[in-house]
């Protein structure tokens, strides 16, 4: 079997998470103006500083234009045709899981994220977010014993307003970009993590995002703060039902690492990608940025991007602290008519800061997969180093792979090394595996997974196997 034929056999992609949960929601009507921003804030009974934050962001957003520099083509988004607030109707204060609507618990069960006491994952605390509203957080008690705060953003605003006020928008300013400004104005909920000084978070933290509604935009906001010497590993997963319309997802994630702190943020993104003709799917316009504020602080992004019709995402590190470390490990797989424009920004400000970028893009079908990354060495970044490796794998002759690394240096004592290569699945590799009794589809999966090995090795153990399976699933019709 030729590699082309093997690839042809792949292109029927089942999406396992395409069901819709029938649940009563509270929605406001479509459209956005200042009164909607005020309404969202009042529904969430927010303190005044947050209302002001939102209003300022809204004013900035109105003056901004949607960015068009990415290698993405999509019909223009009608921002007045989106619902900006939608929440499953349930009691506001949920004292325990018993008070969570069983339909919601069942939804997460079906997604493989059991929340109930008996079934929950043993070493992972989960914050379950349904249509941008946090519905339950497991292991809160156990985490609290270590002083770790892991709750929804809504709760954080009520219980830790001073932390929120201090850090919200400190890494991604409200006017940072069009989508970040929109999020700042209308964000609904999301996760909040605070690791106190010197604490190593005792378990993996995880947020599971579920989009359920077909007309509501999704605007969560995540904030993670690691105090001096603290460390945490955090993972987010994402799925959505299959609709033949597109849903906008414009999230903002901010990370702050102080002296000697370390944050590892992993994403397995499997939003609905649309069907094989490119109909439907999530528009994923996400701003993720970490600030290595302290000396020797470390922020590591690992992403496995397999879903969404459109991905526009550049998890970045601002390396301000001396000897701070930024890492970006990415696998982006696109199939059918998916478009991904993703990469990272490593902004070296502090002396001795180091960064590593490993990006693996796999394009198949009619998809477009673009790596876009910036490495910037500022004038003070003496002794800073970056190493980047961006590899693309092309499957079939209809897919596109683009590489746009922006390399900028103003510091002679900084070193930048960038390498990029392109490969395909060679007939020889495929034949070699087949001649050892391995089916062509399994062989292709094996080759793709081998191509991604360096990135998968960065994922928390529990999720590495998951990511491998997910890739196989995305690529194959018959296996998995």
């Amino acid at each position, binding site marked *: 079997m030729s590699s082309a034929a093997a690839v042809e056999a792949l292109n029927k992609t089942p999406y396992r998470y395409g069901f819709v949960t029938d649940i009563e929601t509270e929605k406001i009507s479509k459209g956005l103006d200042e009164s909607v921003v005020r309404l969202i804030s009042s529904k969430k009974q927010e303190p005044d500083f947050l209302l002001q934050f939102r209003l300022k962001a809204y004013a900035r957003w109105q003056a901004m234009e949607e960015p068009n520099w990415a290698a993405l083509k999509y019909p223009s988004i009608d921002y007045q045709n989106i619902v900006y607030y939608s929440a499953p109707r349930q009691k506001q204060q949920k004292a325990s899981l018993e008070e969570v609507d069983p339909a919601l618990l069942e939804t997460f069960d079906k997604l493989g994220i059991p929340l109930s006491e008996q079934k929950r994952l043993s070493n992972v605390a989960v914050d379950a977010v349904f249509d941008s509203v946090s519905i339950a957080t497991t292991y809160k008690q156990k985490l609290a014993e270590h002083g770790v705060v892991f709750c929804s953003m809504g709760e954080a605003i009520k219980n830790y307003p001073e932390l929120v006020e201090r850090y919200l928008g400190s890494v991604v300013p409200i006017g940072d970009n069009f989508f970040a400004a929109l999020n700042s104005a209308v964000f609904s909920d999301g996760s909040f993590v605070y690791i106190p000084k010197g604490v190593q978070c005792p378990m993996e933290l995880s947020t599971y995002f579920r989009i359920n509604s077909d007309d509501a935009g999704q605007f969560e906001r995540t904030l993670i703060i690691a105090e001096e010497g603290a460390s945490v590993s955090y993972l987010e997963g994402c799925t959505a039902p299959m609709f033949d319309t597109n849903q906008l997802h414009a999230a903002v994630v901010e990370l702050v690492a102080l002296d000697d702190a370390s944050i590892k943020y992993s994403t397995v993104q499997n939003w609905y990608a649309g069907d094989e003709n490119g109909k439907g799917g999530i528009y994923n316009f996400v701003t993720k940025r970490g600030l290595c504020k302290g000396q020797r602080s470390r922020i590591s992004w690992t992403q496995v991007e397999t879903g969404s019709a459109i991905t526009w995402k550049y998890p970045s590190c601002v390396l301000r602290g001396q000897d701070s470390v930024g890492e970006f490990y990415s696998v982006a797989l696109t199939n059918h008519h998916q478009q991904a424009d993703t990469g990272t920004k490593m902004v070296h400000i502090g002396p001795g800061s180091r960064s590593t970028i490993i990006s693996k893009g796999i394009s198949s079908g009619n998809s477009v997969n673009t790596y876009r990354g910036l490495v910037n060495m500022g004038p003070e970044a003496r002794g800073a180093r970056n190493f980047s490796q961006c590899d693309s794998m092309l499957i079939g002759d209809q897919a596109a792979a683009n590489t746009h690394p922006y390399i900028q240096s103003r510091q002679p004592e900084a070193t930048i090394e960038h390498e990029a290569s392109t490969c395909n699945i060679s*007939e020889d590799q495929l034949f070699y595996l087949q001649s*050892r009794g391995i089916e062509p589809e399994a062989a292709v999966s094996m080759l793709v997974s081998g*191509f991604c090995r360096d990135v998968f090795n960065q994922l928390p153990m529990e999720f590495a196997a998951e990511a491998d399976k997910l890739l196989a699933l995305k690529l194959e019709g018959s296996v998995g």
Partner: protein
Amino acid sequence: MTSTETTPFCEAPIQTGDVLLSIENLHVCVEENEILRGVSLEIRAGEIHALMGRNGSGKSTLSKVIAGHPAYTVTGGSIHYRGQDLLALSPEDRARSGVFLGFQYPVEIPGVSNLEFLRVSCNARRQHRGQEELDTFTFEDHVRETMAIVQMDPVFLERSVNEGFSGGEKKRNEVLQMALLEPLVAILDETDSGLDIDALRIVANGVRQLALPTTATLLITHYQRLLEAITPDFVHVMAEGRILRTGGKDLAMALEQRGYDWIDGTDGSEAPQP
């Protein structure tokens, strides 16, 4: 793909002397060029055959066609494996049913761990034979034992398939795969090339150990030296896509002394008679 439809079965017992592979008047093209021009060869259980010939005589082509490489088109003739039409099977089904090709240039596969590759491959063959699949731990014990045959360091299990292996290490890895897959017909394409004396001895020992009264081996080689370590029952000499001569191990020795010109008559001397 027929593999998924094939019901697992236990391979029927084989007696020494049973015909395992039967090639008749095989013609093969690559793009427009005819590379094999009527090759016939019968291989029985318990036999070791050596196939010799100059570069470009068609030896490697024959081995790849038997394994099912997609680049080659069979334009005439047949290959039967244990009475079954081998050409009708996909490469993976040929491998599963016991045809093994040791590659002249084993392919490097970045990122795929050798251990994982060997396990998946070994289990595909086991499943076909109706044996139960080996889990990771059992397999690792099994593979470590097997590695002793080719004196291979277990560190190679953790590396990516053939990536960064020296020529000799790649060839040992091929023989290791052969040992794990327990083929009925093993074709070794220039497994001796690029090996130093010690590596050659180790590889030859491995191959000798794996040649059983119920299996057959086809050694493709340029040189006599492998045949000093493994005594063939038959030696075939190929030129221009045909088997020109067949003889015993003496033929290989005569070739070593007199060169290929002697066979195809290009040295002007009279072609030897069988």
